[in-house]
């Protein structure tokens, strides 16, 4: 992909003004993850009421792609039921930003927040519900 295709207006804007950036007070679950190759790192806080994600915020350091994808992901996630949030796919995030053809190493920048979200859901579900938490963990680990 050419950088003018990657770094379109929306991505550059999100990199300066990410959506849902910050911390939640008293989150119901929070998770931290990092990309060992580039050093991007993300914390994600979720508020969950009656199996619905009522609020979500993230903070951390990352490149424009990481920031834009985290922004888009949190926007998609907010208001979803746990079940619907679980089924958010790579493409849901990538398509939103036109990043489907990103090279392999940058895909990890794009999906770090999704991996972090899935691990946060895993944590919450294992603590609050017993069944099929493991399948979610496998799904998160297999993302890239």
């Amino acid at each position, binding site marked *: 992909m050419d950088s003018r295709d990657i770094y379109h207006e929306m991505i550059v804007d999100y990199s300066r003004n990410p959506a849902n950036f910050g911390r939640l007070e008293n989150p119901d679950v929070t998770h931290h993850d*990092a990309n*060992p*190759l*580039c*050093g991007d*790192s993300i914390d994600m806080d979720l508020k969950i009421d009656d199996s619905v994600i009522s609020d979500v915020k993230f903070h951390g350091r990352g490149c424009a792609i990481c920031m834009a994808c985290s922004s888009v992901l949190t926007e998609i996630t907010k208001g979803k039921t746990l079940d619907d949030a679980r089924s958010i796919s790579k493409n849901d995030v990538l398509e939103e930003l036109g990043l489907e053809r990103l*090279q*392999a*190493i*940058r895909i990890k920048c794009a999906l770090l927040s999704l991996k972090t979200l899935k691990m946060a859901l895993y944590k919450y579900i294992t603590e609050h519900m017993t069944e099929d938490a493991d399948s979610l963990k496998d799904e998160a*680990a297999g993302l890239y």
Partner: protein
Amino acid sequence: MQSSWSDIRHDFPILSRTVRDGRPLVYLDNAATTQKPNQVVDTITDYYRSHNANAHRAVYALAEESTKMYESARDKVAGFINARDRSEIIFVRGTTEAINMVAYAWGRANVGKGDVVVTTEYEHHSNIVPWQLLTQEKGASLRYILMDDEGCLMLDTLDDILDEGRTKLVAFSMMSNVLGTITDVEQITSRCRRAGVPTLVDGAQAVPHMRVDVESLGCDFFAFSGHKMMGPTGVGVLWARKSMLEKMRPFHGGGDMIREVHKYESTWNDLPYKFEAGTPNIADVVGLGAAVDYLERIGMGNVRRHERELTAYALAKMADVPGLTVYGPRDPDRRGGVISFNFADVHPHDVAQIMDEDGVAIRSGHHCAQVLMERLDVAATSRASFYVYNTKGEVDVLVGALRKVAEVFKLG
């Protein structure tokens, strides 16, 4: 396939060399290291000439290419030994490093005072000394599966040790580098599994010469070297069951194996990178991938068949030489293409030296198996070992060279 065996030699320019006074090289030290086909050497050259960059961490074009080449070699190796998961393939320098890695990263945490590690009487030093160092450090003890006079393991001696209940690991080779004996791996792993004991298989002599399927072998660790299977020097593989790797502490600390480093603590990267600290041997890993491709193209069944035939031929020829003692199983189905022998009272060094003048490259000495030498009650042996590019004609040269030895040493 038979008709193309001689074509194979064209891929190995070194086999057309002459040595000493213009003698054609007859290379019969394949158990020590094998020759490399053009396909492997050219792959390495192409890597350096066109794609070289440090793998994994950068976004630029070259780094993308080198990362892809490095990781695709991992896929090839995983497929070659039928690993269930590519992250079970850890690239190391060779069998020796692989076994030592297990002794440090797994052994130091799992073997304690009074525990037992088991190995066998026909192991290479690489599968004995690391366990001596470990057991001595921990106050544990090292025990041996004994060998019968034909060079096969006596598994009832393993049962006796397992029955005592203190065994933490059984480590053994899939094929002896001296006797050629092929170990009945599944017999050992199934007994060990019943006893809840993990197993390590030294596959240095097996992977190059026969189809290996780590899943069906049922072991927990499996080690082998690239340079013995047409690959470059400096690269080898530790395969380990994911569940083992996940429980293990890292071995080396450094770049690539970390997730986050802080001043006073760090977290680790995912498998297999957790165990691949520092810049890997990228070019040679890529070269190993080319060696796997080359072997796959021949087919490991064909490799085994060709070597079995050569071995049977050589054993028959050698049986006719008076004064020659050949070690190991008589049945070519129970052994690989490695033939150790002694010739009357002539020391193996002298045998090898005289053969060298006829261009015949064989190994003499203890073959890094001094415990086996003690068991056989010999100081050393001579050893000829075959690979796909060897021919019956070369076996004839070998046997012919024995005549000169007999002459120099005035044998009967």
